[in-house]
């Protein structure tokens, strides 16, 4: 695997590479994910051929990190100087809310993109929902791709491109009572309502002010040390895609997979509930609230019911018995803050996803569960919760894996197929 150019099957590699621009798009229930390949090796001839419009697109996309009010480019995720389909370039990752899709199209028209005719591979429900409006307004050749195919292929593809840097897990170590080692990540801050640190990245070394009186959450007792994982040894694994809803797939190989489960309790539920319960407006705000909240004010714990552990079934008193279980009590409801409610919402949803993922893994004898999806964006807390839950409930038998490009795999899958299949299309 020395050659970066691995995504094209060898028997097709002699075929013509499609013209620029190269996009892949995934239109989900909440977010639109766009990947764009910026060529670095354009010949003079190509630059002429490229023309003004295409140049404008390129310059607009790479010259900005924010587009309009809501569009954003995830600069941290950019993959620089890679070779795809014989071309050298940078891979960019851009997102905006699905409810801005029509504004996006207007913007494209305004910038005269409709004068260009090119092909785009699209996936996600929006590939169907927006097909007519896109093709009516823009001069695109719109190819719809299966969501799950694209997801799996995207995961595979990015792991090949990004090698050791894509996949990782958390080594969970019980925290010593004294100062944490400097290279480890401490998450006291998640538990302490007095800590106002907002978490902006999955790698957070802020140890916060450890004045928390909560010893209830096991997260506080653990250090999470991020470790790289070699993707090649992963099969078979359970792939959990947490978007608006959640899909659970059993992946035996790139070609051999099936959707085995899913749940409607996902990212959309998190944000929806947070909006209703806390009045927050954005995902970022909701995550920020959750980071500072304390779910034990909201949930009912085992000891709230049994006065201690329920030892017959090995349930410690400090684990949650019932999510939101204290919120039927007026006084407790008055005491719970927005932060507490957001935190409880997050934990409820992740616990549930973790539980379903674990039970699916048991059903299909998998030791690894890989969590992806835009919901994990900016969300170190969630990843630690999932890592901890997977480890705890499987008694250490299962490992939770994560990928750096959380929500972009569907779009990447489209890009890969665009390069592959348009080659085939052209040759026909």
């Amino acid at each position, binding site marked *: 695997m020395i050659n970066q150019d691995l995504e094209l099957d060898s028997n097709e590699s002699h075929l013509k590479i499609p013209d620029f621009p190269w996009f892949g798009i995934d239109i989900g*229930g909440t977010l639109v994910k766009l990947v764009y390949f910026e060529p670095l090796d354009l010949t003079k001839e190509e630059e002429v051929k490229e023309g003004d419009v295409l140049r404008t697109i390129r310059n607009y996309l790479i010259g900005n990190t924010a587009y309009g009010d809501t569009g954003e480019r995830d600069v941290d995720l950019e993959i620089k100087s890679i070779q795809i389909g014989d071309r050298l370039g940078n891979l960019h990752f851009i997102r905006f809310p699905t409810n801005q899709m029509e504004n996006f199209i207007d913007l494209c028209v305004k910038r005269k993109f409709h004068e260009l005719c090119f092909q785009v591979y699209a996936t996600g429900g929006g590939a169907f929902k927006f097909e007519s409006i896109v093709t009516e307004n823009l001069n695109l050749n719109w190819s719809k791709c299966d969501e799950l195919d694209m997801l799996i292929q995207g995961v595979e593809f990015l792991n090949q491109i990004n090698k050791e840097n894509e996949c990782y897990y958390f080594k969970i170590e019980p925290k010593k009572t004294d100062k944490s080692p400097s290279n480890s990540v401490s998450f006291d801050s998640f538990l302490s309502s007095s800590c106002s640190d907002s978490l902006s990245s999955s790698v957070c070394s802020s140890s916060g002010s450890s004045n928390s009186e909560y010893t209830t959450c096991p997260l506080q007792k653990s250090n999470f040390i991020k470790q790289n994982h070699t993707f090649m040894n992963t099969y078979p694994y359970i792939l959990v895609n947490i978007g608006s809803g959640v899909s659970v797939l059993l992946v035996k190989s790139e070609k051999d997979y099936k959707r085995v489960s899913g*749940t*409607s309790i996902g990212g*959309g539920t998190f944000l929806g*509930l947070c909006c209703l319960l806390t*009045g927050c407006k954005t995902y970022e705000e909701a995550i920020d609230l959750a980071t500072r909240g304390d779910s034990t004010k909201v949930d009912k714990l085992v000891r709230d019911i049994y006065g201690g552990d329920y030892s017959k*079934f090995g349930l410690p008193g400090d684990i949650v018995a019932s999510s939101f279980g204290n*919120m*039927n009590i007026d006084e407790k409801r008055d005491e719970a803050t927005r932060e507490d409610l957001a935190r409880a919402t997050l934990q409820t949803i992740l616990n549930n996803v973790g539980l379903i993922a674990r039970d699916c893994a048991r059903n299909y004898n998998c030791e690894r569960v890989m969590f992806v999806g835009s919901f994990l964006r900016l969300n170190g807390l969630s990843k630690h919760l999932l890592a901890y839950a997977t480890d705890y409930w499987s008694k250490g038998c299962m490992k939770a894996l994560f990928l750096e490009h959380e929500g972009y795999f569907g779009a990447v899958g489209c890009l890969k197929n665009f390069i592959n299949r348009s080659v085939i299309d052209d040759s026909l």
Partner: protein
Amino acid sequence: MSSNEEIKDEKSYTESIELTQEAFKHLENASRIGIDIGGSLAKIAYSSSYEYKTALFSDTENNSNSIYSVNEIKKTIPTLNFIKFETKYIDSAVDYIKRNLSSLEEPERAKSIRATGGGSHKYKELLSQKLDLEVKKEDEMSCLIMGCNFLLRHVPNEVFTIDYDTLEYEFKPVQTGNIFPYLLVNIGSGVSILKVESDDNFQRVGGSTIGGATLWGLGSLLTDAKNFDEIIELAEKGDNRNVDMLVKDIYGGSYDLLGLNDDLIASSLGKTTRSSHESVSREEYLKKFKQEDLARSVLIMICYDISQIATLHARIHNIDRIYFGGYFIHNCRVNMKFLKHGISYWSQGKMECLFLRHEGYLGAIGAFLKISQELDHTKYSWFENYAHSSTQSISRKRNDSNPFDCFELNQEDHKLVTCPLLDHESYIPDLVDLTKDEEARSYWLSCFERTIETYEKQCIKSYLEDNDEQTLRRASDFKKSYLNKLNELKESPFAFGRLTVRSLLDLREHCMAEFQFFDVYSNEKRDENKHGLELLGNRLDYIENINDLNEKWKELFRGFLAGNVYDYGAQSFIEKQKMGHLEKFTQALNSIDDSFHTMENYTDLIDKLKFNQYKCICIFVDNSGFDLILGVLPFVIEILKNKETKIILCANSKAAINDVTYQELTLVIKKACLLSDVLNDAFYKTQNLILIENGSASPCLDLSRININLAKAINFHKVDLIILEGMGRAVHTNFDAKFKCDSLKSAVIKNKWLAEKFKQLTNLKDNETKFEFLKEDKFPVLFKFEKFFP
């Protein structure tokens, strides 16, 4: 994680209430008590007993006037009583128990109370102080499982599932000998999933924190509902599609191309995310959505989540029966509906989503059983006393005028088991399910209502000697009680399980017994037995003089059928009898449609009988008098002549209408032996004639519950033909019963509605059953011989 504890506002308050014997039946005789105290409901279980009157029959050789004498004796019947009420009445309840338990002997008291449930530690002191008893706390989950096993084994019609569209209960037969393994999903505050493999072998295999309190908590945060039931009421009215992001919302109009379900939810509450431009407050934002829609979305989300997790566990453990319990379920049809839908969705219809009628009592029954280990299921059987059980147990709403829900089981005199020759895999005793068939339900309910006068009169008549004020009052109380129950059943037809003609008949017997009326036809039966015995000699001679063997068998079966006309359960018989149309047996012979011998395999039956091909014939007999003596006995005697075939006659253990009881049967056979040497030899010498009580007290017959001694005899004597006689045993029940031997179902259909209904039903079910119905002025008959092909 779960708890059966029902939550309520933590402020605990109690309310006093006047308690009566109505609620705490037989408490004065109570010996052991189990209590399950939840946050909102308390459940009490105790064992007790009551005395009831019954008849003792004895030979009277010197009394020429009657063939035997009937005396009243008292018998004690052990009971199990269960009461459910709101925890706020716990003080009053405990006070009442204290007042009425004073008689309890000292050594008994020390070991006599067990408590479970989330509230048990809170009320432990109250209980032990007031009752001066040591209260021991029992583990909640093991109590649930013991309670569940007990209900599955002992209470018929306990298990049901719900119809997604009509929300009607659909009762499921339970193989009482084969109840394991199953999953018990207890949805209290949280969810516990228990795998139960045997009485002693069970474990908590999983759980979820998203349970009943999650619905309550989120419901309280998102709506103005004051309590759990109000959230349910909101959810019943809402439309989740306004707040849930559906697959079609993501895919646009194209979802149908993908073969996806219209209403498939992609993201629960996914439509409630707000755009960053909106600047309204949280409260104002929340008002944009209907509370009903939010409540329904949360409810569906929780039900689907629980059913998904339950299905995953069932698959891991290779189990296909999933029972749900806990206060989240408690008679709440909308929750059951979505759980059912969830289970069939996630398991692709491969797993059963089951509920229990007495789900609320699981913990209390279990706590009680901990101190009542002698309630060995291998030794005792129980029946549900409908008169002492309330119908409101299946309604979620509390009835304020009667806040105590009761459920009573009475011990059967015999251990009851499934008939060994019954093909029991899919056995459902009853022909018509009145819970499903609305037309049939209203017919039968009004039919039983109309005929209540007859029974009231009969009750009074049977106590002619002491026809005083008190008897009249008892009779009218009986009538009132029965009519009340009928009215309640109109409201909730599922209260006692599958509503059937059998359960309505049993209910009537239970109501009569409640007011100390027993065997109200005993005098009529005695008179008719006497009359029958007087005519038996002539009838036997008449048959003996038929030379043609085929004609002889035909006459025997004609008599067999004609006897069945004499049935006090049938209004048309009572009318004809009043007009003197059935004084003579020949009138009965002429009153039936006698085309039975044209039945398809009639000759097969006759051939097998002619050539003595049966080892042992087991006959479930019906009525006293002409039916037994002039109908059944000549047939029995003819068979016994060959000395190669044995006969088991089985009669009811207890009285029901004019059905012959085992005691009466024995006396009648002894008298008949004086008239027939064949009978005499068979009964006293060769023992080719065997009399056994069937364990039943009903005009109908549930073959999954027969006296264990009868079952043993059926095996021992290698019964190879079963004859079921009468409308109750061969039509209302067992019409569809299949046996692992030959069988004959024989009855005179004395009810026009039933004849018509029956015609429809049999045409639907089985094209091969051809028999003529309703020839002018003749009772149609059922005469159905089914050969067994191994």
